[in-house]
């Protein structure tokens, strides 16, 4: 089940002599995808060095993204939003994209710690979100998304 749907698709595309799937992939830039290490480094920069602990952060994403160009997501952080203790930032990252950074949200002690957005995913991968709290601690959640069609091509 954890197979890469995209490479699977291109293999089939070639096997079947069906141009469209392979052609769509050919349109993708020949940029290497980010590694987990790169993502970790990027996160470390954003969190000011704090090592993220697992917990508090829930990433809501479709099990199957119908198209990688537009994947809706919600990040919910289980934490108050008071002056004394609030979520200062939420960073969203897609490890399997050519560049891992998607978006960073910066919050104030107001409302609740929940944001909605839409992102591009180049292939099936883990999406990660790290929340940085006002006390400097960092928390992480992640979710695997299966991408039917990569977010590239016309």
């Amino acid at each position: 089940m954890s197979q890469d749907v995209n490479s699977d698709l291109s293999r089939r595309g070639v096997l079947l002599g069906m141009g469209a799937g392979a052609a769509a992939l050919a349109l993708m830039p020949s940029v290497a995808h980010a590694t987990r290490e790169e993502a970790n480094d990027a996160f470390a920069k954003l969190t000011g060095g704090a090592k993220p602990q697992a917990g508090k952060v829930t990433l809501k994403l479709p099990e199957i993204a119908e198209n990688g160009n537009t994947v809706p997501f919600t990040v919910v952080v289980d934490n108050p939003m008071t002056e004394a203790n609030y979520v200062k930032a939420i960073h969203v990252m897609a490890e399997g994209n050519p560049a891992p950074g998607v978006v960073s949200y910066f919050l104030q002690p107001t409302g609740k710690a929940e944001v909605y957005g839409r992102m591009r995913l180049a292939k099936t991968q883990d999406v990660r979100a790290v929340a940085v709290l006002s006390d400097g601690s960092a928390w992480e959640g992640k979710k695997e998304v299966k991408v039917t069609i990569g977010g590239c091509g016309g």
Partner: protein
Amino acid sequence: MPTPKVKFNETAAKGEILEIKTMIDHDMESGQRKDKDGKLIPRKIVNKFICTLNGKELFHAEMHGAVSANPATNFFITATESGTMEFKWFDDDGSVYAISRQLTVN
């Protein structure tokens, strides 16, 4: 010319938690796509979004090329004071798209 769209409960009770929904039409050209001749299409995205109330920041977002076209950014605030909510989107090319709304808190 992009035209932003914003929606929230503009008359709210003090202490009420409001969802702020925003959207703007923009291609968000990621800088990673190639044109038909194989040349990289230069990046042109909205790289920043900010929401203020009476000049005080409530929320901001820093976006990268992986944000989908026509970005939607939804978040929550607590209704504490009446005033002018300002929403601004910053384009790579220097353009700023802005919209404002009155919030009335009883």
